[in-house]
């Protein structure tokens, strides 16, 4: 089955047992489908909450606290889809960015080295960064995601 067929059946819960196993195998190989399924689950969870659940004030407070904590953790650790190379790069960046810049050129060398790590990694590997390197332009990725490409 093609990606589109898998996704269509997955959304409509029409995968039979054999197809479900096939799809799970497919997900191990196909990053695009994994990304789709993860986002679909997030949307579905939001819809479920909207229609079936009214949280108590206490629970709402706990959820907000959890979200804040998660955002802080996300900022601190990883941006985007993690991969082995991405994690390695994150550690690499974190180490060198916090290194005191005794020699000015040294820091630039490391910026280039970070780029080279990415160029050598698996195609499609996501750039990751340490806490101090969140870009104030990352909303541009949101624009790309919400703009219908037609």
């Amino acid at each position: 089955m093609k990606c589109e067929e898998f996704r269509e059946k997955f959304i409509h819960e029409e995968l039979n047992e054999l197809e479900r196993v096939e799809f799970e195998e497919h997900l191990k190989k196909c990053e695009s489908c994994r990304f789709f399924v993860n986002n679909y689950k997030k949307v579905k969870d939001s819809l479920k909450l909207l229609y079936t659940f009214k949280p108590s004030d206490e629970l709402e407070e706990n959820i907000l606290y959890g979200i804040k904590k998660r955002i802080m953790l996300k900022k601190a650790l990883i941006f985007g889809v993690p991969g082995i190379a991405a994690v390695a790069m994150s550690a690499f960046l974190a180490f060198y960015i916090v290194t005191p810049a005794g020699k000015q050129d040294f820091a630039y060398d490391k910026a280039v080295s970070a780029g080279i790590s990415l160029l050598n990694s698996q195609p499609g590997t996501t750039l990751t960064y340490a806490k101090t390197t969140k870009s104030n332009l990352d909303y541009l990725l949101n624009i790309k995601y919400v703009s219908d490409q037609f």
Partner: protein
Amino acid sequence: MRSFLFIVVSSLLVTYAFGSVVTDFITSYASQSIDAQRVVVEESQSPKIRYERVLRCGKNEVIDVIAPDPFEWALLDGKSYIINNDEMKLSPATIVDIEQRFVQILSATSTVISSTSVVYQGESSYEITALTRNATYIAVIGKQPMLLKYLKVKRSDGTISMIYTSISIVPPDYFNNFIKGLKIDSATPETMERVAWKIISNIKNASIASMDINGVTLTIIAGMFLPQENFISYLFNSNSNISPQFLVNQFKSQGYNSLSIKYENVYVVFATKVKIDDLRVWIKKVFNDQ
């Protein structure tokens, strides 16, 4: 001859009916004020799924993307804005809402349109099909009131489906008061934003980060600009004390292809394993003449 005349007359009547439905819908759409929720699913090489709240007054709207990642934007008098807390600033790129595109398509004289009566979710509705050179639009619109409830757009490279899960008609003041509560910044987006957008909008798997090195901020954008080819770029202000040539030489000394360009007051250093000529062609396409 008689049957031929019958077909011609019937076609004219049917066309008039179609035209009437479409005209009524376009007129109604321009005066509607709604607070609604919808799910948008895009099936393409880069599949997307979003759950959004829509606050719309005519063709002006505020879209609050609830999931997967919260993000709020607005379309006011044809201009796209980004909303952040109580501030609204001009977007460096036009944000396209497929629903608004559909209404434009309906108004275009070259669009081939047909319409039938259907029952959608238990309610008497119209199904409108619009054909353009590149796409087929299929929409379900309620009869009373004429609210868009479902839209599917098919193209050779994918489909977009948009399903409204709830729609409430609200007074126009509801929207106007919301907008009045926002501080509007209509300043032109900075060059750095515009350059970053040019790159991001032309690559796959885009990611962005920044590095502060000795007081200088580098914006780093990575992604794939050809199938299966990674690519990285460094953006910084031309008045900073970084030499773009220094970065280019560093990449070259490691066996990579690299070059730099200056776009207004921003330097961009590119590096990749792809042939330098392919990189030049891509840059020319993205930056037009550089």
